[in-house]
């Protein structure tokens, strides 16, 4: 008997129907949920489909660039497109996103140019966009740290006195199932709860933290943890873009209205490796991946569009062609990304002058220049 088996198997992956909010089945059938009515026009559904296809294509292009040595690393979102597009399209202009390093789909929704995501992975910078311009903070690599930033920013929104007005915003903190074990995530739940801060905690439970399955992080379904902190938790089908949109929209509205935080657990699956350096064949079965393939987030929207005669073949071709254009442009832009000059590492460390660093900077510049003198 191993230590883990002493208390019996946890039921963290159990997805009883009554627990999971779903508005679109894997077969593309629209179902209703009493708490989450959603009325989407055909055009809106087509727009969601377009987003899903494009971000998957961006992701595949980045994986390919990594394989070709153009990026040092990439964290693929494959399989998590619906969770990201659904939640991302629920956001308003005054909301602020605090992402992990895998939120490429949310970045797309916030109009961050895809090329700007690549700087970090190519090694030309640590983050290449203006968070304020996009309402999208920089990627955070230390697991869970950004949830506290989201809670603090939300406390700032409260102090600005805008909740309940048309200027009201909320923050949304993205994190994964592994992050729920971090102290910072738990502290952010406490701060958000006791201050009733306008935060949506959006956990993409993709079942795997690199090689560790959910059972290594929790003994109960993650969304139920919210109860212990004193705010609502809901589990949504993370491969259902409609449900992710509806659930996040409601959580954001509640937050902006002064009703405090919500934990959304988007139940999904990381179809790819953790990052391009990872090898999932060492720790999980192909059969599990095959089972999740049947729940693909894009296929079900396509089936829904086809079944309802809401889109024709020309539309699907057009979306594929657009996605290919975006990916081709990204590829070209990546290859054209210049390496920064060596002195760039001294930029932006401090806002005001710092004599010690300046001295090192000047010496290093002189050292580099001495090679030029030798050559000439």
């Amino acid at each position, binding site marked *: 008997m191993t230590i883990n088996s002493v208390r019996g198997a946890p039921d963290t992956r159990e997805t009883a129907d009554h627990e999971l909010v779903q508005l679109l089945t894997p077969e593309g059938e629209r179902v209703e949920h009493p708490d989450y009515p959603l009325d989407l026009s055909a055009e809106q559904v087509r727009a969601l489909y377009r987003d899903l296809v494009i971000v998957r294509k961006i992701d595949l292009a980045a994986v390919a660039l990594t394989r070709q040595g153009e990026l040092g690393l990439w964290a693929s979102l494959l399989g998590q497109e619906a969770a990201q597009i659904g939640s991302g399209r629920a956001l308003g202009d005054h909301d602020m996103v605090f992402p992990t390093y895998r939120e490429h789909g949310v970045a797309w929704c916030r109009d961050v140019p895809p090329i700007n995501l690549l700087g970090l992975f190519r090694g030309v910078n640590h983050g290449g966009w203006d968070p304020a311009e996009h309402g999208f903070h920089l990627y955070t690599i230390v697991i869970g740290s950004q949830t506290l930033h989201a809670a603090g920013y939300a406390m700032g929104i409260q102090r600005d006195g805008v909740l309940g007005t048309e200027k009201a915003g909320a923050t949304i903190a993205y994190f994964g199932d592994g992050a729920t074990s971090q102290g910072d995530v738990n502290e952010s739940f406490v*701060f958000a709860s006791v201050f009733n801060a306008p935060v949506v905690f959006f956990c993409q439970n993709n079942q795997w933290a690199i090689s560790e399955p959910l059972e290594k992080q929790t003994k109960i379904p993650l969304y139920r943890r919210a109860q212990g902190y004193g705010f609502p938790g809901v589990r949504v089908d993370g491969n259902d873009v409609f449900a992710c949109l509806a659930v996040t929209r409601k959580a954001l509205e509640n937050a902006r209205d002064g009703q405090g935080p919500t934990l959304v657990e988007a139940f999904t699956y990381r179809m790819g490796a953790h990052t391009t350096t990872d090898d999932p064949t060492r720790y999980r079965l192909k059969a599990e991946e095959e089972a999740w393939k049947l729940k693909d987030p894009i296929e079900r929207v396509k089936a829904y569009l086809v079944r309802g005669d809401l889109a024709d073949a020309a539309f699907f071709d057009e979306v594929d062609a657009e996605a290919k254009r975006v990916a081709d442009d990204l590829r070209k832009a990546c290859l054209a990304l210049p390496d920064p000059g060596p002195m760039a590492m001294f930029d932006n460390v401090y806002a005001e002058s710092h004599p010690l660093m300046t001295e090192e900077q000047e010496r290093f510049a002189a050292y580099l220049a001495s090679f030029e003198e030798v050559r000439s």
Partner: protein
Amino acid sequence: MSEPVTMARAINHGLRRAMEDDAKVVVMGEDVGKLGGVFRVTDGLQKDFGEERVIDTPLAESGIIGTAIGLALRGYRPVCEIQFDGFVFPAADQIITQLAKMRMRSLGKLELPVVVRIPCGGGIGAVEHHSESPEAYFTHTAGLRVVACSNPADAYTMIQQSIASPDPVIFFEPKRRYWDKAPLEEDPARWAPLHEARVVHPGEHVTVLAYGPAVKTCLEAAGAAAEEGRSLEVIDLRSLNPLDIGAVVASVERTGRCVVVHEAPVFSGYGAELAARITERCFYRLESPVLRVGGFSTPYPPSRLEDHYLPDLDRILDAVDRTFSW
């Protein structure tokens, strides 16, 4: 100049003035509100500025710094209190991986004007984790500014300058000096720049470098040395990162001897950096190696032993003597 006030009151006055000047300044930490902080440094601020600006936080240091970062991103200027030096470590991750690096990560688009106040050092007979000197962990981290006040007048000005800084500042307060009294200079035109060292006792024979709680001990040592005919020049560094190396070099070039004093363990301590830099710049002028007086390579001892661990007047004078016997 004001009536003499304690260092704790001086910081309180500085915080109050910063909060009056800028509505975005918020004070946050454990027990800083109703109680006024365990050292009463924030006494009365919540009563006057309200719970929204003087925030009693949950008991979670990482949470304090992490949410302060979020508040700063929203345009606020948080001043965080870490209750005791030994409790900063749960917050070290947020300070080192986020607070210090976010400006560079954003290519200069984000500003993080966060002040982290840390009562530091020993000498108050406290239990474990309440007497430490963790400054070197933070001076080693690029992106942070690290300062240490040693007297009420500096505490009053430096806390305001730190709050005004667009960069994050780690602000060390020597807790055994909280009750020392001195008048305050209220005219900003007469304040020294935040990152400038100060000669607090001019002398000719040996330069003694100190900051925070050790400055007063060094001044006492200078008085005792004078009786024996030795003239010590005591410099209060005030700022540890950046370091005012010019002031240090100018003094050592004159004296040719240098002793560094701090409470933190000597090995890999801040004094090692000082010794290296002084050796690089004053090599031919030095009559003896730069000597260091500080804590031992042990955890901070039980308080009944702390008088042996902390650098005192005699250990400083012993080091001064040794600089003449090389």
